[in-house]
């Protein structure tokens, strides 16, 4: 289990390769990358605040829960904080398993939980000012899928 909370950018390709390479014991790797999206073209930057200490603790608990539910051979979570521009990568998760069903389900679970249970808060900056991103009811409802 590899969990990193950092301000610096990460190399999605290199991290995915390192996670996958030289593993003969796994049959499946699923990776997901979250990117700063510029919907209407007005977004200039996004700033992510987090709760140092609790963030790492929450992500570890979420990853441990995924490892209890599915048969995983590896799990990587990288999540950035600080200021990012549209197109920059915010975070990634990768899961490895013997079979793809476990890798897909675990990655899906990790994303649902870290969206609304890991202490990160997004603020969007545009020409009109800055605004905190509101949590979506759908994100909270998504947790219900996992029982």
């Amino acid at each position, binding site marked *: 289990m590899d969990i990193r909370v950092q301000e610096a950018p990460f190399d999605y390709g290199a991290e995915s390769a390192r996670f996958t390479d030289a593993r003969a014991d796994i049959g499946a790797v699923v990776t997901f990358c979250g990117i700063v999206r510029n919907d209407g073209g007005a977004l200039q930057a996004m700033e992510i605040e987090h709760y140092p*200490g609790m963030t790492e603790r929450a992500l570890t608990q979420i990853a441990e829960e995924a490892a209890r539910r599915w048969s995983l051979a590896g799990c990587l979570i990288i999540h950035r904080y600080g200021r990012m521009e549209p197109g920059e990568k*915010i975070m990634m998760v990768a899961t490895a398993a013997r079979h793809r069903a476990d890798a897909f389900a675990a990655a899906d679970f990790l994303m649902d939980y*870290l969206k*609304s249970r890991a202490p*990160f808060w997004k603020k969007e900056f545009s020409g009109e000012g800055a605004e*905190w991103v509101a949590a979506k009811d759908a994100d*909270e409802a998504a947790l219900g899928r996992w029982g």
Partner: protein
Amino acid sequence: MTLDILYFAWLRERIGLPRETITTEAVTVADLVDELRLREERYALAFSDLSAVRVALDQDLAEFDAPLAGVREVAFFPPMTGG
């Protein structure tokens, strides 16, 4: 009891500080919130709608009726928006 209280995101902005240490006799989180609301208008505003506020006790999510006994760090923040 002495508590470190942390505020994040718009709660931090509305209250105007990221953390403070207070001495309180509050028994539960809800008691503590009531106490804070009475301090100043900015606290009353920040805590005017508790459905928009989450709380963590010693870095674990908790409910507003949770007891504070033995707790050292209380954090208030809006619903999380990671990912």
